[in-house]
């Protein structure tokens, strides 16, 4: 079973993040860049499937030169190789263009499953896996908290819903996306980190993929950021120490707000 895992380099969601003043795209210099947090769960799931069924795990990322750090981090967990799509023209691409680029790159690879995080921790659009299903005409198995591969074709997921889950079935090839409920990602071992440095990374430009530069990038985006601002900080509230009457004081506050 050959699996491609989609990985994105994002600003650390635990730190302060912002957009760039000049072109209003995500500021990738300010924060600490990390591998998309949900992507680690996608890698873990792929490695578990490989351990059970054999085959190869390939990491695929679209991003600037410095995304190689993220590729090495991903490879250190255990995947076999990586594909890096990098081209200056890609900067500022929206989800629509990004999905076209990834679809073209997947066209160069052989896979039974593509696995991604359910959403990126920066854009949080959560639609990219569905868009790849649309573009590639493969089954959509998204939002999984559990993934089962039966034999070598039938794939079943438990898709998280508001009050439970849906059981979704499809045959491969398919695109799966996963939430953080699905597994516990492994930490890279020292050996893994050393091996990652020697694993093959193939780099594609847009022209290698047959994607025209004027279909992607900020100028071709189908939506535009007009303006942005920091959310005004909340006015300082009241903080009282509990001197045996903390619960009552809390309820008095709720009463002033007409909540109780």
């Amino acid at each position, binding site marked *: 079973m050959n699996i491609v895992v989609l990985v994105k380099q994002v600003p650390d969601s635990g730190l302060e993040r912002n957009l760039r003043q000049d072109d209003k795209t995500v500021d990738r210099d300010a924060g600490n860049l990390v591998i998309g947090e949900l992507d680690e769960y996608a890698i873990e799931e792929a490695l578990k499937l490989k351990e059970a069924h054999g085959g190869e795990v390939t990491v695929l990322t679209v991003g600037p030169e410095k995304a190689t750090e993220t590729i090495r981090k991903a490879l250190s967990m255990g995947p076999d190789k990586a594909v890096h799509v990098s081209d200056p023209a890609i900067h500022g691409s929206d989800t*629509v263009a990004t999905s076209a680029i990834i679809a073209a790159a997947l066209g160069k690879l052989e896979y039974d499953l593509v696995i991604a995080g359910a959403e990126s921790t920066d854009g949080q659009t959560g*639609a990219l896996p569905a868009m790849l299903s649309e573009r590639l005409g493969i089954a959509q198995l998204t939002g999984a908290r559990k993934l089962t591969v039966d034999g070598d074709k039938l794939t079943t997921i438990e898709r998280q819903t508001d009050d439970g889950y849906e059981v979704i079935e*499809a045959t491969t090839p398919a695109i799966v996306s996963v939430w953080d409920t699905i597994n516990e990602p492994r930490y890279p071992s020292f050996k893994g980190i050393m091996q990652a440095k020697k694993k093959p990374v193939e780099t594609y430009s847009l022209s290698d993929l047959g994607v025209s530069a004027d279909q992607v990038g900020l100028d071709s985006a189908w939506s535009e950021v007009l303006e942005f601002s920091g959310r005004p900080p909340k006015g300082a509230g009241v903080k009282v120490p*509990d001197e045996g009457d903390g619960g009552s004081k809390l309820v008095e506050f709720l009463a002033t707000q007409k909540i109780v």
Partner: protein
Amino acid sequence: MAEVLVVVEHSGGAAKKITSELLTAARALGEPSAVVFGAAGDADKLKDTLGEYGAQKIYAAESADVTDYLVAPRAEVLAGLVKQASPAAVLLASTTDGKEIAGRLAVKIESGFLTGVTELAADGTATQVVFAGAVIVKSKVTKGTPILTIATNAVTAEPAAATPSVEAVEVSVSDAAKKAKVADRVSEKKSSRPELTEASIVVSGGRGVGSAENFALIEGLADSLGAAVGASRAAVDSDFYPPPHQFQVGQTGKTVSPNLYVAVGISGAIQHRAGMQTSKTIVAINKDEEAPIFELADFGVVGDLFKVVPQATEAINARKG
């Protein structure tokens, strides 16, 4: 005035709260036409509610072909309706399904889409809150028919009575859109408490609650207020309040925006704030006076939750007499 397609969120013909919010938002752009995906008879059951919030027309796409397969058939039917009605925009709920339908539709009809919209102006300018609530962005779709997914509890629903006509939609779904079959739908709902994203009060517990048994304290406080129960990821990961996901508030859980959010034994990590930051009033109980949750709290009690919560629950119940 142009039509605005609004994809109705419902369960078995009962409208979810977001549906009235979607119809209200749609009225800023044109005349709302509700699109009902469901089983035969659902559109009729929904008709009164949809009319109450201004739906002029209802497209009834009632067929097993749209309900038995994941997302793709709905995007296909919508693409057909866009062609037929040339709407000013397509509005959906910013749920997993809604965002995925939006993305597929964007590819199909070559139009831009925006997700998690909290405010929609008459000129189509959409407000989004990003980066765990830290940044407010105003954007606009610049190509095709704007596709917008609207965040729950962000728009205040306002009635505007109308008497909608119901138009049955001929549903014919391609084989390509039938690749992911919904084999089962399982509800793990374990109480009659309100749905987390719809509740006007949410009481959440974190790692500080300490155990699954202790979560009864959180439930007790929630029930005194008629609130939904939520949890931090640390609490969910520690199995304090299963099943996973259903109750988690935050970046990878649910986004809530209630009138009152009570955070108990929760430190207030950025990823948690991402899911509750826009709550109107925030109350926190934490024994660590430096806990970042206090930066957000309108009212905070620095103290032991095992003392404060029972006292508060009792005082609320006493008020009810």
